């Protein structure tokens, strides 16, 4: 007679749609976009919100609850979402339209391009799950959204690091003329930049810390990782500067080039494919300025990414702090 020995299965790491990239115990702020939009809407009666069946998943539900008469549910119809946003703006309103980045960039591109960007309307597109912030695979991972959008004239692209960036960006996006695209971080969003002498200024890069050996140029959640990696590298006696570039377009080349025009190791860090994002933005600025400067990219590979748990995937594709540290040490030899 055989007996079955019950063995405890190892707990599997799973992929959640709305996975948090916050570290355990890290300070976070709930729904910074939704609350910032409500605050901005109190000050500016022209602000309206709309979404394509993703209000709860883009923190737009906070606005919808506060201003039901200024919120428009457009259903799972992204072309209508952006066409209607253009129409609302044509009547003098200031729409914030939310969906996932994949749908804004891939499915509704033509509507953003021709109905919003060409007439240079003040429509603010809010894209959830930018880059690798979900483990659901290519259907939801907008790894190439900035590459798609950078070629669009008039469109301002913002890749915020944390809740501080988002809270400060929202009123500036509403106040700026022309269309914007915000790479949304939602839910409990890490709060990082309050530790630094920092304010978000649309179109400006900011030096968050100085350092003699390496200069990081980063955007989005990778600025958080860059700051953590800089601390870790200090233990290896490597002194790292961090330049945060939350506005990808128009790009603050002046600030960035001033930092790159040194003999420090230059590294770009982005939550985006290595094609067409921050690295290539920096590279083109460097070449245009005639700097013979090597730049090392830390970015997602040019491929469709795996499904899985976010920590697993960030480790696999080189976005984790450990992988950043290892890459820099290898570069320094």
């Amino acid at each position, binding site marked *: 007679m055989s007996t079955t020995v019950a063995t405890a299965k190892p707990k599997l790491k799973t992929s959640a749609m709305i996975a948090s990239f916050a570290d355990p115990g890290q300070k976070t702020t709930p729904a910074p976009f939704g609350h910032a939009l409500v605050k901005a809407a109190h000050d500016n009666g022209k602000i309206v919100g709309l979404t394509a069946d993703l209000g709860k998943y883009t923190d737009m539900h906070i606005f919808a609850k506060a201003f039901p008469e200024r919120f428009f549910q457009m259903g799972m119809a992204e072309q209508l979402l952006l066409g209607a946003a253009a129409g609302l703006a044509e009547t003098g309103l200031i729409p914030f339209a939310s969906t996932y980045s994949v749908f804004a960039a891939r499915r509704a591109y*033509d509507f953003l391009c021709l109905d919003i960007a060409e007439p240079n309307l003040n429509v603010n597109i809010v894209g959830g799950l930018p880059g690798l912030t979900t483990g659901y695979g290519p259907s939801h991972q907008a790894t190439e959204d900035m590459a798609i959008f950078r070629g669009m004239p008039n469109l301002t692209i913002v890749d915020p690091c944390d809740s501080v960036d988002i809270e400060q960006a929202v009123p500036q996006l509403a106040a700026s003329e022309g269309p914007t695209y915000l790479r949304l971080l939602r839910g409990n969003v890490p709060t990082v930049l309050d530790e630094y002498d920092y304010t978000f200024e649309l179109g400006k890069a900011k030096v968050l810390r100085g350092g003699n050996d390496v200069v990081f140029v980063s955007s989005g959640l990778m600025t958080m990782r860059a700051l953590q990696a800089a601390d870790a590298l200090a233990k290896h006696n490597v002194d790292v500067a961090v330049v945060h570039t939350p506005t990808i377009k128009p790009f603050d080349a002046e600030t960035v080039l001033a930092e790159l025009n040194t003999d420090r190791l230059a590294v770009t860090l982005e939550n985006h494919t290595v094609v067409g994002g921050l690295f290539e933005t920096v590279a083109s600025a460097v070449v245009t300025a005639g700097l013979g400067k090597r730049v090392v990219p830390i970015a997602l590979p040019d491929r469709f990414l795996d499904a899985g748990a976010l920590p697993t995937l960030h480790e696999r594709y080189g976005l984790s702090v450990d992988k950043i540290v290892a890459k820099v040490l290898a570069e320094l030899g």
Partner: protein
Amino acid sequence: MTLSSTEAAPAATPNAERVDRIRAAAQRIRHHALNMGEVQGQGYVGQALGAADMLAAVYGDQLTFRPGDPHWEGRDRFLLSTGHYAIGHYAALAEAGIVPVSELETYGSDDSRLPMSGMSTYTPGMEISGGSLGHGLTIAVGMALGLRAQGSASRVINFLSDGELDEGSTWEAAMGAHHHQLGNLTALVDINALQADGATDTVLRTEPVTEKWEAFGWYTQRVDGNDVGALLAAFDNIAAVAGPVGRPSVILCDTKVGRGVPLLETREKAHFMRIEEHEWQICREQLTAGYGRTASA
């Protein structure tokens, strides 16, 4: 006129003076379109001739606007989704006094305010940049929402073509307009049964069109789009039932490409119609002769 609607329509007949006034405007629009087409030697003349009655009814009878102040916020909005119909729209804008008639001859030329495909950034009175088909009705939904939310009584009229019924975005917008009960929105669909690659029923069958719009919740009427009396009656029916909150309305307009010019009406149908240099004068003469014969008493 064929009324295909679930709603009883008021039995109003537009009076003859009103019909004649719009017919005369349509005739001028057709002449403008031929003259513009001749300067270019080409153009979407067939579509302009087919849609002239619709455009005349809209600008001559329906829209509230100020010719000298095309951005006046109290205006009704007319959205041309089919950018290539701009030749007809420019003629209507001239008829409306928004664009000088003398400017029409610049159509399609370098540095003209009247490009081949209509764009809002170029032309006074042109509300949107059409051309990428299937956009107009989505923008119209946003405009109607925005105007209503701000307490405006302005209406939004979107001109689209039956070819645009191929685009999924048109139906996204049709659903959205009904969901939001945009009673201040009217769609005008030019059913000329022709698109770029040929007859609509050979490219992508869109019929039954009437039943589709009714199923999407719209107040639906189908008329002969070259019958001015029928067009005006359809607009009157909408006025009788419409309010800012309620069902959106659509007038499905069966039209004839090249209408009013037998030479073009009988020519093999083409999205982009070729007209020889010597034929333009023949077209004008046929247009004039035909108008005399069909004028109402």
